[in-house]
Structures are given as C-alpha cells and as structure tokens.
C-alpha cells in the first residue's frame, strides 16, 4: 500500500491538527511535511494528503495533552517544533504518545529516545533564544521607532517578542528575521507577527551613529589585555551571530 505523506501549512496549529487526526485514528500512520518545505518529495508511490489546520482539532489535542502531561512538556514540544529540524514532526508525535502514557514527569526521562530527541531540539532553541535576548541590537530608524535585523538558526522571533514587550514597552520596535522574511512589530500596545515582502534600511541619523560609536569604544575598552582569550570569546559569541552586532565588524572581529 502507498505510504501517506501529510502536508500541513507550516504552523504549529497545522501540525497539531495532523497529530490530532493520527492519534484519534482518523488518519493512518504516515510521514509529515511542510506544504512549502524543502522535504516536499516527488515520490510517485506515496499518497499526498493536505491536512487543513483546524482550531477545534488544535484545541482538543492541546487541552488533552496539557491535562495529561502538563504545560512544561507542552512548551517543550513547541520549542522543538520551532527548531524546524528535518523529521522533527515525527519525533514530536512519538513524544506526544509517550507523554500521554507517562504523564507530567515525561520530559525528565531523558534515557528514553522519544524524550531525548524532542528535549535536545527544544534545548537548542531555548539556548539560542536566550542568547538573542542579549545579542539583539536595536537602532532608532525613526524617532521612537527601533529596528533590529537578525539571522537566527531557529525560528525564535515569536519567543523573543514577549521579552522585549515587557522591557521596551514605551517605544515602537521591530525584530526582523532576515533569514525567514518574517518580523514582529510592536506598536506600543501589541505584537504583530507578519511576513516581510521587502525592507529597506534607512540611513542612520547622526545621533544613532554617535551611540553606535560610543558603544564600540566602550566595548573595546572593557577587554583586559592580560586576560585576552579569543577562543573563549568565540565560544560565547559564535562568529555567525556577529554580523548583526555593531561591536563586531563584517569580518566578525
């Protein structure tokens, strides 16, 4: 019999709707893939089915999961999903089944493969998210409007938004994921998550350049030459992140 491939719209609600079908027995077992994703295989022998995201299906599974396995395990799955790693959809499905059986402590049972795969993906996302809470650099592109462009490995801007909403609540800001062409816009009261069609960076104002220059000067002054240790610095600020941080130049140093 032909293998089933379930396509979903790329959102968390979408994949949860697929899980709902598979766990409830309405859908047969199969592999899962994003509708516009790169793992869209041109496979003649498999049967391709698009599963529409459904609010009811999503909520039903979410509630059932949280009741059985708790919020911590639920957010762990969501983080793992945002890693966008190949095959993560299948691993999360395994974890849902495991957690529905084993309850709230499931996430701690790292000796089990079902848990470890999701846990380690979630951990990587959580770590990158934590790093970016520090590494994001805003610049004032219009009076009162601050912009930051980043290129994270994982899809984290939605996770970053609440953090900046809490602390920078009295200014407008944009966090732009240049890799995924998405952005979070904050307008002083709420965050909007949008796709970005195009963006042109305006020239920096004189004031903005002064702050940048002062930060750079301060940053350079803070190094202690008797303790110089570029290896350690690279461990903490990997070169891949440096091109969007104003204290490092294009070459990363």
């Amino acid at each position, binding site marked *: 019999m032909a293998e089933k491939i379930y396509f979903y719209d790329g959102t968390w609600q979408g994949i949860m709707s697929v899980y709902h079908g598979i766990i409830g027995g309405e859908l047969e077992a199969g592999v899962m893939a994003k509708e516009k994703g790169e793992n869209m295989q041109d496979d003649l022998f498999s049967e391709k089915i698009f599963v529409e995201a459904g609010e009811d299906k999503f909520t039903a599974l979410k509630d059932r999961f949280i009741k059985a396995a708790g919020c911590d395990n639920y957010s762990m799955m969501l983080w793992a999903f945002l890693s966008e790693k190949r095959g993560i959809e299948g691993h999360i499905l395994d974890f849902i089944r495991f957690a529905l059986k084993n309850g709230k402590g499931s996430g701690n049972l790292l*000796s089990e493969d079902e848990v470890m795969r999701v846990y380690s993906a979630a951990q990587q996302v959580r770590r990158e998210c934590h*790093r970016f809470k*520090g590494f994001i650099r805003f610049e004032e592109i219009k009076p009162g409007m601050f912009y930051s462009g980043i290129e994270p490995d994982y899809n984290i801007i939605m996770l970053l938004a609440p953090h900046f909403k809490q602390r*920078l609540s009295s200014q407008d800001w944009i966090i732009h994921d240049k890799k995924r062409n998405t952005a979070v816009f904050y307008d002083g009261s709420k965050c909007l998550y949008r796709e970005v069609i195009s963006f042109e960076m305006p020239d920096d104002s004189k004031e903005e350049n002064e702050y940048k220059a002062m930060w750079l*000067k*301060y940053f350079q*002054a*803070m190094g202690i*030459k008797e303790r110089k240790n570029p290896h350690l610095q690279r461990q*903490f600020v990997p070169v891949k992140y440096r091109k969007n941080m104003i204290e490092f130049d294009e070459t990363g140093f």
Partner: protein
Amino acid sequence: MDLSEKLRILGEGAKYDVSCSSSGSRRTNKPGGTGDAASSGICHTFTSDGRCISLLKILLTNTCIYDCAYCVNRRANDLPRAAFAPEELANLVINFYRRNYIEGLFLSSGVVISPDHTMELMIKAIRQLREVHNFNGYIHLKAIPGASPGLVDAAGRLVDRMSINMELTSDAGLKLLAPDKTRRGIIGPMTQIKDSIINYKKEKIYIKSAPDFVPAGQSTQLIIGATPETDLSIVKASENLYRGMNLKRVYYSAYVHVNQDSRLPVLNETPLLRENRFYQADWLMRFYGFKADEILDENTPFFDNNLDPKAAWALRHLDLFPVEVNAASYENLLRIPGIGVKSAQRIIKVRKLKSIRVEDLKKLGVVLKRARYFLTVGGVYAAGVPVKDKIIRTKLLEKKSLSDMQLKLFEPQAGFLTKEALNGGKNLFL
C-alpha cells in the same frame, strides 16, 4: 572632554571589577517606563578576554583620594581623570538600554572629597534614572566603604544589588595594600545591608507596598594572588561571608599587575587558573553541600593545579567510592566527580521509572570520562582499573593539558547558558 572619551576612561577604570551578574531581582517594568529586571541574567556581549558584558560597568569618576596599591585609579597614578554629571550618565544608560546594548547599570566610583560626598553623587545619578527616566532595569551599586548608614539606606531602596569589595581577607593585607581603608569601614556597611535586607523583607510580609531593599542581594569581591594568604584561608573567609553576611555571591578576581609598587608581588602571569579553582570551590559550597574545610585542609592548603577541587576531594576519600548510581542518595550522587546538580536530579527522576543502565548515564548529562572511576551501575564497576589514587589520577589527567583547562573552565558569567536560564528563570545561581 567629549562624552565618548569619558566613557572610555571611566569604563577602563571599572573593568577590573569582575561581577556582571544581572539576575535574581524581581523589579518589573511599570506603565510608561523602560526596563525590566525580573528575569534571569542576560549577557549582551563578550569582550576580547571572554568576559561577559551585561551591565554598563562604569565609574562615576576615576578621581580618588585613596592610594590602594593594587588599584589602577589610585591617587599616585598619572592618568587622565574624568567624571560624569549625573544627568549625563543617566541619559547614556537609558539610550544604551533602549538599543539593547545592556541589561542595566553597574555603578562604581573613585572616592572624591569623602565617602559620603561620593555616595551622594552616585545616588543622584541613580535617582535621575529611576525617577526622571522611569528606568526599571537592573542597577548594581558599589557602595563606598565608610559611607554613612543613612546614605546606604537611601541607595538600597533604589538599586537591585549592592556590593562592597572586601578585596583582601586579612587585616595585614589590607593595612599593607589599602592603608586608607579599614576593615570596619567595610564590615560596617556590609552588616547594615544584610540587616536591612532582612528587615525590609519582614516589613513586606505585612505591608505589600513596602519598598524593596536590594532585592537581588549583596555581593563582594576578593583579589586572588596579591598577598600570600593560603587558598584555604580565602575559601574559609568566603564561607564566612556566605554564612555570616548572607551574601548572594563572592567574586574572585585574579590579581592583574597594573601598578609598579614594591608592596605588590611580581607575578609572571595573571593567576587565571587559580581564580578558576576558587569559582569551582565556590560552586561546591553553594550547590554541592561542601564545607570549606572539606575542599582544602591543613595538609593541602592550596588547590591542585591539575585537578579540580571535587576530583581532588574524591581522591583523598577513595574509601567512600565507588558509589552505586541506582542506590545512592542525592547528596552522595553530587559528590561523584562528573555528576552535577542537573544530572543528579535527572538520575533520581529516572530511577523512579526504571533502573539505570550504563548507556543511560551519558544521556542524563553525566561526564563519564571522570565519573566512571567513582561509580558502579547495577553493582558493576566499569572503569576497568583498581580504585587507587595514583592510577585514577593518571587516568583523569590523560590528554588534558594545562592551557586547555585555562581556556575552557570559566565561571558561567551572569547566568549565561547556566541552569538558571535553562530552568525557565528559576535562579539557581542567584
């Protein structure tokens, strides 16, 4: 003098202070305000020496009436002097914060005119930030030894953390290298801050609107290697500070040779490895249930260059090993080299479900390279060598050069990638 030059001079004067922690407070943003301190520590960047920048660590002025031998800002040094006006500094902090360069302010100062006069200037700058700019981010204030109780109290209501650097643990050391400072001038305000934290907390139980006093707690710094004290005496002093003063953190700063002075030792290099050993010992005291005199004793008053203090302790107590992973208490698991707080907790949780196999240990975060010599799994000792000091010591040191360790074993600064961050904001490291 232009602002950026001031920033450079006053930043350079502050950089030898090692603390940059920005965690452990509970101050939250207010409507219309900027900044929030109620999160785990966040590092915003790392300098060329691999230390994190979390707070804008800066001096209000580097002019100083004192002449401490080890200090770059001492009176006798011929260097450019600068000072911020309170509003100037407040404006800089708020603008850096709005660009997410920093997590807050770490304000220290040289002593101008008198300790009280200096404290007043610092309070003015902080008040400007809090009250005019409505800034609710993290502020760490370095209190000036000898400042009067009224000023310490006023400052404590405005900031998240306050610290007074002890620098030298012995009276003799202080007399020799910091003749203008007295032990009383340091211990006095330290005790006041400790007592106030306790009293304000009590008040808060009954009156919800009572102000917070230094909600992220008090810390201090000790210099390592400027005077001939033993490591044992410094670790003991540190233990006393944690117990007697309720300190959140003691920081250790490897002595950097910045001044020519006959009272100072001439070291060929900055004692970074020794500094790191102090942090490891500090962790053992705070999270692993070790006492100072277990870490070092009269027979071994200095740290082992080649072994971390936990492994060194284990080798001195081989009669307690090997430990059975499936049976040992949490406290005993923590004593095994290669098992940390997180992996010990995981072992306990998994054990409830099933017995642990050798192949599970790595997944649970156990560093088998070290741990294998100290444990059994289901009664089986898998290291394949006798439990003897010399043999295990040689095994532990295989393929581990000194320079390698200096690079890798640094204190996790200000919560960066530490358990507090990964525990969803629970502040394990303060």
